[in-house]
């Protein structure tokens, strides 16, 4: 019987080819629009995600002392000691199958002295091994390449066992060091001065031989990156502000977070907490930008998807009205109301599936054209100029298909309900569709 319903539905669509073609076109346009938008959002999410994890050295999971949101008020109090760092890393060995590598970060407020002038800075000191692995990570390189004009590199070695520091082009400009290429350094000597964590005045000499970009608008004028050992010398401590865990791809993040917090509570009660990179506390740039994008995506989804579905429903309703006699005939032959409704649902299904198939091919073509045209723009929180890139894949196409098809099928069912609820005698007395 399913074959007959499909046959009825398919031939019903062919009854008025022009109307069917226009309806299919409306669906295709809606699907293409949504898929292109989703492809852009997907790509941007990919970029921002890898930025947050690898470029900003947050890792997938960040471990801090409980109360570390007050770190800047009392850094020594919320510092993780070297003994604790080693103990935590030892306990984390049970998750070795899931962990790619672990890094430490020390955050310091200081001042950079150059050419007899002093500029306030915030220093991020990274463990070198982790910093190198993160900044050269294939995921980061892949996601940024072709999207931004800037591709990050690790801290640059000055001599054996020593790396230079990095500042932002904006800070470089403030300090009066102007270059033609804001990313390429001229190296210069400077000094970092400030109070160590025991409030003693301290200073270290540095070589600034690299520039880096940051997605944080606030940090652009203040950000300095260096190795953690230099940061420790400046602050006269051996600990870290946070431990950053970088996971392998296939790990379930929420599950790992729960396991980590359970472990921390068990081994170090009431001392440490683990957080996901995707929270406001860890990556406000990521959550802020993604929230904005998702709101826009949902808005357009409702507008475009809603318009398309409603226009198809309008056409379907007209078609149902024209075939009241046919509905009555099927009911009089012993077909149930649900079986009759199925025919019209199949019509929507055939139309939608056809639209999805053609729409996916057209989307691939449009995405290819847009990507090759290399339109540029400067998004908020950007690492310089960005190219508009659309990433379309089968899974994304499938999700958009479900988002469009499911409401269409459900609403088609309800659209046919009204007619099939009518008395048989009234349906059969309408001879407009009969032969």
């Amino acid at each position: 019987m399913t074959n007959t319903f499909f046959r009825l539905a398919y031939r019903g669509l062919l009854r008025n080819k022009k109307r069917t073609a226009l309806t299919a076109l409306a669906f295709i346009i809606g699907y293409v629009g949504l898929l292109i938008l989703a492809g852009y959002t997907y790509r941007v999410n990919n970029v921002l995600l890898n930025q947050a994890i690898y470029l900003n050295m947050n890792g997938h999971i960040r471990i801090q002392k409980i109360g570390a949101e007050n770190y800047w008020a009392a850094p020594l109090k919320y510092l993780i000691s070297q003994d604790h760092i080693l103990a935590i890393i030892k306990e984390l060995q049970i998750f070795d199958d899931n962990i790619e590598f672990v890094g430490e970060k020390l955050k310091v407020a200081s001042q950079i002295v150059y050419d007899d002038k002093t500029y306030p800075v915030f220093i991020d000191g990274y463990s070198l091994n982790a910093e190198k692995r993160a900044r050269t990570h294939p995921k980061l390189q892949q996601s940024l390449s072709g999207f931004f004009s800037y591709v990050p590199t690790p801290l640059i070695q000055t001599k054996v066992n020593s790396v230079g520091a990095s500042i932002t082009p904006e800070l470089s400009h403030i300090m009066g060091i102007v270059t033609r290429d804001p990313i390429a350094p001229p190296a210069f000597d400077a000094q970092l001065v400030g109070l160590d964590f025991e409030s003693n005045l301290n200073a270290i000499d540095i070589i600034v031989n690299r520039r880096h970009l940051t997605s944080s608008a606030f940090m652009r004028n203040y950000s300095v990156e260096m190795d953690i050992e230099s940061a420790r010398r400046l602050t006269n401590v051996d600990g870290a502000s946070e431990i950053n865990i970088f996971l392998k791809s296939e790990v379930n993040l929420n599950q790992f977070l729960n396991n980590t917090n359970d472990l921390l509570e068990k081994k170090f009660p009431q001392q440490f907490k683990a957080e996901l990179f995707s929270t406001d506390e860890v990556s406000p740039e990521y959550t802020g930008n993604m929230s904005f994008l998702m709101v826009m995506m949902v808005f357009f989804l409702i507008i475009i998807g809603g318009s398309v579905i409603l226009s198809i429903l309008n056409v379907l309703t007209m078609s149902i009205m024209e075939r009241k006699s046919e509905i009555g005939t099927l009911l009089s032959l012993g077909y149930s109301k649900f079986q009759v409704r199925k025919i019209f649902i199949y019509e929507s299904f055939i139309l939608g599936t056809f639209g999805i198939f053609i729409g996916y091919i057209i989307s691939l073509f449009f995405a290819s054209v847009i990507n090759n045209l290399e339109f540029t723009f400067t998004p908020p929180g950007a690492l310089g100029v960005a190219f508009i890139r659309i990433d379309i894949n089968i899974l994304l196409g499938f999700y958009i298909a479900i988002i469009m098809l499911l409401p269409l099928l459900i609403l088609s069912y309800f659209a046919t309900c009204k007619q099939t609820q009518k008395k048989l005698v009234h349906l059969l007395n309408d001879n407009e569709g009969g032969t």
Partner: protein
Amino acid sequence: MAASTLLELNDVEKTYLLGEVKVPALSKINLKINTGEFTTIIGPSGSGKTTLMNLIGSLDTPDAGQILFEGLDISNLTNNRRSEYLNKKIGFVFQSFNLIPVLSVFENVELPLLVIEKMSAQERHDRVAWCLDNVGLFDFKNYRPDQLSGGQRQRVAIARALSNHPKLILADEPTANLDSKTAHQIINLLLDLNEKYNLTFLFCSHDEKLIKRVRRVIHLSDGSILND
């Protein structure tokens, strides 16, 4: 063998509401149809013929009275019971043929059989072939309804009505849209099927010239039976 009562109407009434005006369509109808009978209901336009057919076919519900089909009250069936009743017990032949235009002759006749779950494709094929043979249209099985004449379309409708081997075939003015020659051919076909297979027919028309071969004629006027 004595014929058994297939259909029984007891004090059946039906009133329509046109705005605020109540129009009595049927008034205390009492009627019995036996198995194998070919009964014709004759009456002018507005006499209540179609209303009576609709009530018997469960296309509408009576306001009063009882309609018993094989002893079962069909006056107020649930949706599922009505579908089962229409599929297994009743065959309809409509005035406007009511064929599905996008299906072929074969597919139209097959439609009632698709609801029957335990029927194989081969059994369906054989049944449809038998039906089309009986109406003389087997060679037209791949034609679409719009490729047939009026008389041929009505034959397809008759074949469809036969396909599920119903207990009762209801034909509501099946010849109204046909020329007189074709109309007589259709009536003769129905009568032949009645004689050949002892099928029970309830046929209604406003044309008394068509009923010369019919044994039982019920005259309906203003919603009441004048004579039977």
